[in-house]
């Protein structure tokens, strides 16, 4: 990769690591269901902001990490993340100009899609927890998107990630 042109790779990596840490940090059982999909949101942000650097393959790798840390079937989150990365890349020019609430809705939809894919795979392997429970993270991700978006945008501008 051309280092003169691409800067701030460490920030992208760091944000993914932090998101993964937030995903596995223990929460009380009540809040556990409402845990937003931090990794998916960070992935969507970077796909939107720097589509030339973060794409389907990064999404797939990040998904694999999540598979292992959640001890899920190897590949279920990888598939879901690759798909949402693809869709975000496809839509990134439209997403960028959306006002933030509209962006949040789109992110909610993307995370819903991720949850549905995971639910589908879980259903196939006979461990489906029920559709409404699976969709709660999509809702909480929608609520947390403005925070993630503003924070990551500030960081990206401060460190001039390009």
């Amino acid at each position, binding site marked *: 990769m051309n280092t003169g042109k691409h800067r701030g790779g460490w920030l992208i990596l760091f944000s993914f690591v932090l998101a993964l*840490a937030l995903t596995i*940090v223990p929460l009380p059982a009540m809040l556990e269901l409402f845990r937003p999909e931090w990794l998916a949101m960070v992935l969507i942000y970077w796909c939107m902001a720097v589509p030339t650097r973060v794409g389907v393959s990064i999404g797939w790798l990040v998904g694999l990490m999540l598979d*292992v*840390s959640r*001890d899920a079937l190897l590949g279920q989150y990888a598939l879901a993340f690759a798909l949402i990365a693809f869709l975000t890349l496809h839509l990134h020019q439209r997403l960028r100009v959306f006002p933030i609430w509209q962006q949040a809705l789109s992110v909610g939809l993307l995370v819903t899609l991720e949850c549905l894919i995971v639910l589908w795979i879980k259903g196939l392997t006979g461990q489906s927890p029920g559709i409404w429970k699976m969709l709660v993270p999509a809702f909480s991700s929608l609520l947390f998107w403005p925070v993630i978006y503003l924070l990551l945008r500030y960081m990206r501008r401060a460190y001039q990630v390009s």
Partner: protein
Amino acid sequence: MTLDHRTDYVRHVRAGIAVLVYPLQYLVSMPADFLDWTGETLASRESLQEQNADLQRENQALRSQLHKLTFIEAENRHLRELLQSSKRIGERVLIAELLSVDLDPYRKQVVVNKGHQDDLLYPGQPVVDAYGVMGKLVHVNPFSSTAMLITDPNHALPIQVNRNGLRAVAVGMGSEGLLELPHLPNNADIKEGDLLVTSGLGCVFPAGYPAARVTEVTTNPSLPFARIVAQPLAHLDRSREVLLVWPSSETLPEMQKPCSFAVEETP
């Protein structure tokens, strides 16, 4: 994904990624460990002395019971020799600690800080704590392993009622943290408060470990089976230290080598 679900080929890929994830899991679990540690370090002298005295009393009580137990064990071995059946040998155990990280919220799983770098662990190995059976290992990675708890909806544990030897299967109920005993007829001899111990059938868990206590028996004559719910004895959400057990072939049931496949895996 099909490969992972049906076969064992991608085990090494999973183990490789798990090595990358382990430092993060360790890091995340550190604040909880640190809180425990500060709690221990800053405990007052009086409370420590009190605890020490309590533990000494308990130790003495347990030791006197242990003397009785060794006597009974010797007697048991003797009787078994008379009956010419194989004798029971104590199992080998390894103490491991849980990492405080969350996995999939819809399943009941924990991460243990021992992997195949530490000892010859194998998937399917029983995990117990001081109070009863906790679950079994499902994935063994170089530095850590994941265990499925007995309350996971995908987990079924062969048990028997300690009082009368009635055999049943205890299936996890998921988020409720309880076990269910399906397919027992309405007239089955089982009551509230019955102790359920592992039966050793199924060749995964050694026989005789306490597993759960029956909390609810509902019989409805219009349904073919009774609804029986049991509470696990192991402190599934409180224990920090767990024991990994290597069942010796002798503690598995004594039929005509029904467990030869399980014993082959056991080092």
